């Protein structure tokens, strides 16, 4: 087949054309992303605090050793993992439900699609402030609703207690980013041929059975992409937590990115901050590998 292609009257072979098509993307990434990334790796091997430019020196893996012995780092890692697992899992479930609602044909579907996207269209910092107001212990509408419904006896400071602060942050994140998940999954649902469902219905398969045997397997590649990118984002969560709680109460919601941000830009400790960033990168890399292993094992067999 390759031979057939090459005999056609075009200047480029298949692989030459392939490289040509990939080139612009690689150029962008090489130009913009590669240098900062390499730079960050390099800085992470130095003691570099901007307040003391004269004391800069190469320290090898010292920053990493310090970080791994640091309680605060461990606390931030646990918080980040908790945040990521719970919010991504909820987003996947809700996102799939909403995507299926958006995929069904009925009047007003366009409105439903636009409505479902609203949360994602609001700038993150604004939506974080909005939730801060909703959770407010005095004028927050959440307290008002729950007290009116007699679910809680009196107003609570949702962001002020270790028990509820993380949950509050997760709810705000799920609200904001489920549309992202839903939209990706919707696009995946749309390329599943209708005939498969029609045939299954003729065979008498229940809706649930169709979901399990048709929708889920065919949606697997899309789910993989959606999960990877949501996890990347959730694991690096910054703005939302920073605005909602600033890492409090008592650092119980501080995530790795918040910690890295404080280290880099508040403490001006570029050595440690870079090392933290590299660690975040490595964690995400591992998570992605796991996803790809689990979810693409099936599709490569096809």
């Amino acid at each position, binding site marked *: 087949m390759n031979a057939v292609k090459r005999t056609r009257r075009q200047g480029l072979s298949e692989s030459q054309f392939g490289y040509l098509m990939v080139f612009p993307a690689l150029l962008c990434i090489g130009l913009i992303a590669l240098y900062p990334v390499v730079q960050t790796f390099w800085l992470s091997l130095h003691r570099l605090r*901007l307040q003391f430019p004269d004391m800069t020196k190469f320290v090898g893996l010292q920053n990493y050793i310090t970080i791994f012995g640091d309680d605060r780092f461990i606390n931030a890692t646990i918080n980040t993992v908790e945040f990521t697992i719970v919010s991504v899992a909820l987003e996947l479930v809700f996102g799939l439900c909403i995507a299926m609602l958006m995929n069904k044909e009925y009047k007003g579907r366009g409105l439903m699609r636009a409505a479902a996207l609203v949360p994602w269209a609001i700038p993150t910092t604004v939506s974080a402030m909005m939730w801060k107001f909703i959770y407010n212990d*005095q004028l927050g509408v959440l307290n008002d609703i729950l007290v009116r419904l007699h679910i809680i006896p009196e107003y609570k400071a949702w962001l002020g207690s270790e028990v509820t602060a993380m949950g509050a942050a997760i709810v705000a994140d799920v609200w904001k980013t489920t549309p992202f998940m839903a939209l990706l999954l919707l696009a995946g649902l749309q390329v599943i041929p209708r005939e498969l469902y029609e045939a299954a219905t003729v065979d008498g398969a229940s809706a649930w059975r169709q979901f399990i045997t048709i929708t889920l397997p065919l949606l697997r590649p899309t789910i993989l992409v959606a999960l990877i990118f949501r996890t990347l984002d959730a694991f690096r969560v910054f703005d939302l937590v920073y605005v909602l709680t600033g890492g*409090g*109460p008592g650092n119980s919601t501080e995530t790795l990115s918040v910690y890295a941000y404080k280290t880099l830009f508040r403490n*001006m400790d570029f050595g440690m901050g870079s090392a933290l960033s590299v660690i975040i990168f490595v964690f995400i890399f591992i998570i992605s590998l796991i996803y790809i292993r689990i979810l693409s094992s099936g599709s490569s067999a096809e």
Partner: protein
Amino acid sequence: MKRFKMLSLLLVAILVVGLTAGCGGGGQQSNNTNTQQEQNAQPQQNPEPVTITYRAGKDTSERTQMLIKQFEEENPNIKVDFQEMPWSTDDQHNAYVTALQAQDSSIDVVAMDVIWTAEFASAGWLLPLGDKFPQSERDKFLSGPLEAVTYNGEIYALPEYTDAGVLYYRKDIISTPPQTWEELMEMSKENIGKNGIRYGIVFQGNQYEGLVCDALEFIHGNGGDVLDSNGNVVLNSPQSVEGLKEMVSLVEEKIAPEGVTTYMEEDARNVFQQGDALFMRNWPYAWAVVNGDDSPVKGKVGIAPLPHGPNGKAGAPTLGGWNLAVSKYSKHPDEAYKFIEFMCSDAGQKTTALVGGNLPTRKAIYNDPEVLAKNPFYKDLFNAFISARPRPVSPFYPQISDSMQINFHKALTGNITAEEAIANVEKDIKSIMGK
């Protein structure tokens, strides 16, 4: 297919607009205040005036614009390009750190929170101003703000305006404000539940810089301190522990609302303004707001120096405020200095007080009749203002503050005791400074 073509045409059109408009944006170094369009339309006509860039947080009053206009009239050969930043101090700090460590010459005048002077100076980003700022001039400024622009014996900025924590109280309910925190607690307990009062006091208890300001007032006001005059860590003392304990007990005994651990300035101000709290710890800015036409407590509010602890003699407000410095990478340092000198002159400081509503840094302004007419409490509180205590002046301050924020907040939310919090912070500071 046709629609697809139309769409791609549209997209290409957008792209072209984007590119041309983008190119019009021009270089960072262009020394022209005019907007892009004007820059394209007419090449520089008059090459003479020097433009300096003044970067600062957003000014919600007319103050900065007025002062710049006045300055430009007095100095026709200098133009000031005021680059406003979002007010969030973290956003500002972040943008400064990025630009200054890149040695960007496009910023001439830097507005800094009082706590940044030491770190920026130590990083070598600021021009030393000592020889331009003679002793005779220095004497005219309040000592606290002056101390805050000094690092290692050198002056690195001029104090633009100052700030100090004060106690607001409901003068319709309480005749004389409390002298000590204990008195405050008793008054609160007496009045909670009456006259619509639900809480004794509101303050800034969120995990952020404001918490450090508030907590240090309890510690300083009880004779404790963070660093001694030689820079040794002396935080872990019975006085400090007792001071912090008083703060914690305000929450424990429900004198402050449960949610105070999430409050920043405006949250506290709102609860107080709605008439729900008897006292409020806040900065002087709130005076004009709680007495605004819209305010339910208008005319019912008194303002007093902060109370002190059993081992303290007087309340110890934390020093706030902002300073102006000249970037070391500025290409027009003389013009930039001229500008900050003007901002901190008598005339500049008067406008700062009258239009901006900020506390001036020059002593003389506190006797100005016009200023006193607008802010009558300046007279009574002058002694409190001049006694304001700076937070530790150290290039490590952000890390010190970080540790205080975390540990004090843990104490406030009942996770650790005041003793543990103080001990943890002392341990952290020692290890930070030892590095």
